[in-house]
């Protein structure tokens, strides 16, 4: 088990290096100049050049990348070009906010998907299951930023029940206040995750329900709740695997939802800094999400291995 995790940890290194190289190159290939966000429109080329040289943006790409990497491995993410703060000061608070959103969304979608998926597998012909099926398809198909706007229109503007933007009210910030701000972004975020996971839970559970050992359990007269536990135990590796992946998507894929709701998370920071070409922040933001994604996969794989001995032999 230990060597399994070590192997996986080692494999993380080339993955993350690859991610940083791709992101770095992409940012450099896309036209646009961070200096534009720093100088007034009527600045002359010489004034722009001076700022560029000071920021080291006049050096060849590979030198810039090597400098950046050398600092990152020492734990220094550098400074934001535009905001003049250490990147960590910008991203770590944002990461907390994103984690709050993503973990809440993960818990909600996991709970909903499990309940709905199991129900649909047990009663595949019921009209409720058909409705769930249609809804989960819609959840996968609807773009989350659009759903976000509709939710704001209905629950914030028309009904006035919930706030439309930010993480807390002006002067607020209590637990209940944050929960109120969390409801709509979570609702918009979980839609596609719930859709994907519900369908996956349903097919996994219904597959297991048809297996012989379940038939035997039922024949022995074991209570339905206990049978369900057996079913879940068998289905859990698959479900966990997908849940882990989905959590990764929740972390990285909330850029648009965070923007619509002005949720101060990593996604919003990345969205804003891409617009300004604030390279160090975008780089670090993507890196953090990549680490989280890879890290979650590792945890899921480890859990999978613990639950299912066959995996450990890989």
């Amino acid at each position, binding site marked *: 088990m230990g060597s399994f995790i070590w192997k996986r940890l080692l494999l993380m290194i080339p993955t993350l290096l690859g991610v940083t190289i791709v992101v770095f190159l992409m940012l450099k290939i896309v036209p646009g100049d961070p200096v534009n966000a720093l100088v007034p429109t009527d600045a002359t080329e010489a004034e722009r050049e001076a700022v560029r040289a000071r920021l080291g943006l006049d050096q060849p790409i590979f030198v810039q990348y090597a400098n950046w990497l050398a600092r990152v491995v020492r734990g220094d993410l550098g400074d934001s070009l535009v905001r003049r703060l250490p990147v960590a000061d910008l991203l770590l608070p944002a990461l907390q906010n994103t984690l709050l959103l993503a973990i809440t969304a993960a818990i909600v979608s996991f709970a909903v998907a499990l309940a709905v998926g199991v129900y649909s597998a047990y009663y595949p012909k019921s009209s409720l299951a058909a409705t769930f099926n249609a809804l989960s398809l819609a959840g996968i198909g609807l773009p989350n930023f659009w759903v976000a706007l509709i939710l*704001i229109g209905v629950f*914030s503007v028309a009904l006035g029940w919930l706030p439309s933007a930010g993480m807390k009210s*002006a*002067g607020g910030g209590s637990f209940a206040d944050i*929960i*109120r701000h969390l409801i709509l972004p979570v609702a918009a975020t979980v839609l596609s995750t719930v859709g994907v996971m519900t369908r996956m839970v349903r097919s996994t559970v219904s597959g297991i329900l048809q297996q012989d050992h379940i038939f035997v359990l039922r024949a022995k007269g074991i209570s339905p709740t206990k049978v369900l536990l057996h079913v879940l135990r068998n289905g859990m590796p698959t479900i966990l695997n997908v849940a882990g992946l989905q959590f990764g998507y929740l972390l990285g894929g909330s850029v648009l939802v965070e923007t619509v*709701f002005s949720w101060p998370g990593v996604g919003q920071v990345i969205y*804003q800094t891409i617009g300004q070409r604030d390279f160090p922040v975008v780089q670090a933001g993507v890196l953090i999400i990549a680490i989280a994604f890879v890290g979650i996969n590792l945890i899921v794989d480890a859990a999978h291995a613990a639950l299912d001995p066959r995996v450990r032999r890989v």
Partner: protein
Amino acid sequence: MRRFNLFANARMPAVWLALAALLLAAACGEAGGGSEAAKEQTLVIGMSAANIPVPDTTPTEGYEGMRFVGYQLYDALVNWDLSKSDKQATLKPGLAESWEHSDSDPTLWTFHLRKNVSFHDGTPFNADSVIFAFERMMNPQFEYYNAQLAGSSASSFRHIESYAKIDDSTVSIKTKGVYSFLPYDLTGILIASPEAIKKEGAGYVNNPVGTGPFRFMSMKQGQEMVLAKNETYWGGAPKLDQIVLRPISDPSARLAALQAGEIDWAEVPPPESIELLKSAGYQLLTNPYPHIWPYVLNVQDGPWKDKRVRQAANYAIDREGMSSVLLVGAATPSTQPMYKGHAWYSDKGEAYDYNPDKAKQLLAEAGYPNGFKTTFLVPSSGSGNMWPLVMNEYVQKNLKAVGIDVKLETIEWQTLLTQFLGGFPKDKEVGAYNISLPTISPTFYSMFFSTASIFPNGINIGGYSNPEFDRLVEKAETVFDESEQTAIFREASAILADDAPYLYVVHDLNLRALSPKVKGFVQPQSWFADLTTISME
């Protein structure tokens, strides 16, 4: 086979019910809260920026940063007079009570500073603070030199040769050559507390200190910045106790936040919401200000080289239709760099009405009876660019009607800006860039249109050149009498209307929506805003 009834288990629904009740309670618990804050006079502003501005003396987030943070925390030697809505914002004494230039040497200016003014941290304001501010941006050898600030305020001290303290309340400034626009440039150099900068070092931006009407309280990246009343402001204490700035970059989200009562002030709501907001009792404010939304034409190559073609295009645009119908009154027609009503506007120049027949005739005279094809590079969004997608399609339709077949190439804003600043591409035909530009200070005449500023020497990107215009703007810099200066600007504006180096379309009207609770705000003809007169009902 018996069906398993999983949900027959009685405990399950109870758990769910309890959970739902808990969530509901949490959701509704605070809905009526915040009554304590209501007693205080707090104004919550929804900015269009994606983050709160970095509150140094030249804040980030462009003019919005200057508007809500720069001029609230700080003063310059020369301030903007933002108290009137019926005429353009003019200059007024700021931290300098008065100033004059020497008659024998017009490059030498003397500024007499306001006495008994203190920074928010108690440090007295005097000549040393002014010199400190200048050194911080202009002297790379200075201990507290800040290269980033130097870059972001470069255009403000481009014409300053040297500066010196004469006594505690007097400083002198020497310009590079005779330069009468100096007071305009000085509005861009805000003065911070030297003690705060010395004490905080790089952390100064987390605890900025100025002399302005509001002082800094707190900020949270991406969330909010809180400013509080400066009780001892030299220009009179503001009525508000507190201002909360919230970045909400999505216009629909900003609108929703206003409607939900989370903010009292929304910058640029979507124009299609104007009628809805009005009927719901919101204050919809508009006023022209020095802003243009034109096409910068490539006058050095291709058909746009011919003045008649440029005039033809200007006659082809239905500006009234775009302003009042498409944009529901959020813009006003533009036929030269300044708007009608501004002192520098000229009624002598070509006044382009909507006249497609004249446009066709001019095109025929220029040798294009059947029109021509061209490409315009346009932004998809971006600061000051209004609603470029629909507006560009509107112009495209207008031009098509007179035979000019425009292909619109929509480019992401930063990319477009970078391309624009790099001049017109050499390897393909591009007729124009669509880009909004500020015309706040008279320096824009030379920066955007003079021969000396033709790319790469400046940002006259289209390459327009007219010796008579050059002579006028050079002269304006040496004229100190205001009315004489104004007359020259008008003459220059008339030439720019006739020569049409730009395809003028509209001026933005600075649309903002305020809740009915906000009282006493004057919407100035300016990029900036005076928040001291506001009170909350």
